[in-house]
């Protein structure tokens, strides 16, 4: 370990978050390393000053009042949901499932099947890409300048989650133009589809977000301001949800 790594441990030690063995490792290193001993002393002093930063700024009373009014309005519109009973959940799920089947394919387009198919092609490195690039801005520019969309499809940068951008493509199915964006992390592929709603051709249900499965492939679907985004992969639903929160 170098002194940069020890610095992380020194900071964590001052925050009292080290395991006993890590603490012992730091203690042994400090005995031998003057640079880290100085750093530790500096960090300890700095921490006392950092913790004096104002941590409670009072919310202006007008803002508090606005918030209370908004919450009252929300209360009247929709009280917070209590944990429903199991049977009620099952009944609701059945109803939602039936609605989803009825609403999802208004013109017979098996959209979920097609996004999962794209995913399987991408996972097998057989999905044709128009642009291969790790630069999200470059891909966004490509979508934008194609003038094939009624909106500029955003290209999210998922590096914060360790995913690198592989590239993207523009596809059309039954008159609906899609942006297809492929990401990869350690061989794990995630495919993002974005498209603008088209009356009668794209899903028209009002659900803002939901999760669907097609075999071993899961898709989180979100809709915002008329743009539908789908994120597909073999990741566990909760991990896929974390990513979809980033792109939506």
């Amino acid at each position: 370990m170098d002194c940069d790594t020890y610095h992380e441990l020194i900071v964590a030690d001052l925050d009292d978050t080290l395991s006993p063995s890590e603490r012992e490792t730091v203690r042994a290193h400090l005995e031998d390393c003057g640079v880290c001993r100085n750093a530790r002393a500096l960090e300890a002093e700095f921490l006392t000053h950092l913790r004096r930063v104002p941590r409670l700024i009072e919310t202006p009373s007008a803002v508090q009042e606005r918030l209370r009014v908004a919450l009252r309005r929300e209360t009247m519109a929709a009280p917070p949901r209590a944990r429903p009973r199991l049977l009620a959940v099952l009944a609701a799920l059945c109803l939602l499932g039936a609605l989803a089947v009825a609403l999802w394919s208004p013109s017979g387009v098996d959209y979920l099947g097609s996004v999962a198919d794209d995913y399987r092609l991408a996972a097998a490195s057989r999905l044709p890409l128009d642009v291969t690039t790790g630069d999200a801005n470059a891909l966004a520019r490509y979508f934008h300048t194609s003038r094939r969309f009624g909106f500029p499809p955003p290209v999210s940068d998922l590096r914060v989650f360790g995913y690198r951008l592989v590239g993207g493509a523009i596809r059309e199915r039954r008159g609906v133009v899609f942006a297809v964006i492929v990401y990869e992390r350690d061989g794990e592929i995630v495919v993002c589809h974005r498209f603008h709603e088209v009356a009668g051709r794209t899903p028209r249900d009002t659900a803002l977000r939901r999760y669907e499965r097609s075999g071993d492939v899961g898709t989180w679907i979100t809709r915002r301001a008329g743009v539908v985004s789908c994120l597909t992969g073999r990741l566990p639903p909760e991990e896929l949800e974390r990513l979809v929160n980033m792109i939506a």
Partner: protein
Amino acid sequence: MGGAGNLKSRFEASALPLMHHVYTAALYLAHDRAEAEDLLQETYLRAYRFFHRFREGTNLKAWLLTILYNVLRNRHRHRIAEQRRIDFAAVSEAYERIASSREAGRREDAFFRQLVDGEIERALESLPHEFRAVVLLVDVHELSYAEAATALGCPIGTVRSRLSRARRLLQVALHEYARQRRIVDN
């Protein structure tokens, strides 16, 4: 309905008293008072809608700050994902100089005490987003590393390394400020 009414009163009794904490975090993260007010409102409305998902016995402040950070991330995903290039080799070098000055007995370690009020806050606000957020959650709001990792959607190891870098960045920035005002020699 009884359950919903009970949730509503529990939300009002437990979440509303934390409003100032959420507002403070929003001010640090948003840079702008109007946006902070907007973030506060959206955070509370979402928290209210999803309060049934909050697990009793866990840290409600951390849960609210997680929602706040998600709201912010959804609004400014491009700005947040944008990584400002920082020459960390140069930062480490400058930091080592500051730390070693303690050994030289020049008492520069005490320069923090001579900074004017608000200088640390200003330095904090100048940090790139991912570093500012982690300092805010851990040092200002005293979330655990695990709670901060949940809020930021990253592993605990990332919280640790960001904190280490953020604190060095802050100290180098403050030392530069002190040098310009001749609080320290070089």
